[in-house]
């Protein structure tokens, strides 16, 4: 598994844009890999598994940063309150104001999109089950989740971008 270290490091550095942040993320990847190693043993599978874990860890780090800087947390913050985020603080949840905003926006989605988003993101149902409950095809269930998430992304992130650029 460690044989993939160099290419994984390069991948995470490309994503993070900072060598220090990349090392934090890689540390988390190896911790995950040792605690819950991949089920597959063929090198190809192990490689794609490592990429998935590393990419998601990097995205989480970037996502926490996004969240802090956008409408999700109310006012954008210039600096992190306690200096650089420690690894266990990266995924700290939203405050009450951020949660309220998210709920408000989800509540305004059209019924099918709203239910599809809840089923997928909160209940973590597979698409065939979402399709069954919504009474539509799997393709349409995917489309409903996508349309809902696309709208939320536009509302919760782009609004803020416009505020700071204008």
């Amino acid at each position, binding site marked *: 598994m460690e044989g993939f270290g160099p290419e994984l490091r390069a991948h995470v550095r490309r994503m993070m844009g900072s060598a220090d942040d990349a090392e934090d993320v890689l540390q988390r990847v190896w911790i995950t890999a040792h605690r819950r190693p991949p089920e597959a043993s063929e090198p190809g599978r192990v490689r*794609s598994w490592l990429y998935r874990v590393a990419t998601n860890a990097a995205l989480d780090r970037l996502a926490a940063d996004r969240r802090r800087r956008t409408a999700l947390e109310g006012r954008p913050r210039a600096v992190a309150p306690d200096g650089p985020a420690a690894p266990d603080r990266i995924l700290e949840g939203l405050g009450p104001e951020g949660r309220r905003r998210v*709920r408000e926006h989800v509540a305004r989605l059209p019924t099918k999109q709203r239910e599809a988003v809840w*089923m997928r993101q909160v209940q973590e149902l597979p698409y065939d089950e979402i399709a069954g409950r919504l009474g539509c095809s799997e393709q349409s269930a995917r489309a409903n989740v996508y349309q809902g998430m696309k709208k939320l992304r536009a509302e919760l992130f782009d609004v803020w971008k416009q505020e700071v650029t204008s």
Partner: protein
Amino acid sequence: MTSQPCWVSEQGVLAFVEGDLEPEAELAVARHLGECEECREQAAEFRALEDAIASGAGETVRWHAFGTPFGRMYVAAGEAGLVRVSWAPSGDEEWTRQLGERFPDRPVVHDPGNAVLVEAESQLHEYFDGGREEFDLPIDLDALPAFSRRVLDALLHDVGFGQVVAYSELARRIGRPRAARAVGNAVGRNPVAIVVPCHRVVRSDGSLGGYGGGVEFKERLLTIEGREDLLRAG
């Protein structure tokens, strides 16, 4: 509008974030995220959103709808039991909107296979057909103010099939004899129609009084319970 200059669509980025891709596609998109800043931003934003939606959500409210002799009927339940039984004549859209307003921090989803809801459907059918006098269903009134809960609990436990009680009598039974009007309000806002028998509360002069679903429903329910005698008085 943001342009999409690369081979991975926004929907593809979301599919990656959700873990909804086959291994080969997943690896390809992962590598692409290392190269394409725009897609990486999208992915990070979707990831932040997913996390925000899941962490902001209270316990799920599940609902189900079915036809009855009284029209389309709607039921909803959380983990602890039934939270709503009602007629929502204006359809599913209006019903889910109302539920969302009532439970603003909880995901509301259609779940016609939920055990409590399926059981509620079958017991309500039995009741309408005259084959059931008591409901055996978990009921969760915790979202209500304490006073309403006391009123509805008293109604649920002390006023059985075919019996009726006056608003003033119900007020006396919960130890608040001068609160008949407040009792009337609590009964009028009963979220769990039929199962919590608000149709069994009448005026002390013997007239029927109002009913959330329309007084003709109250008459039909009391008829099911063999109390046609009350209809003439009203």
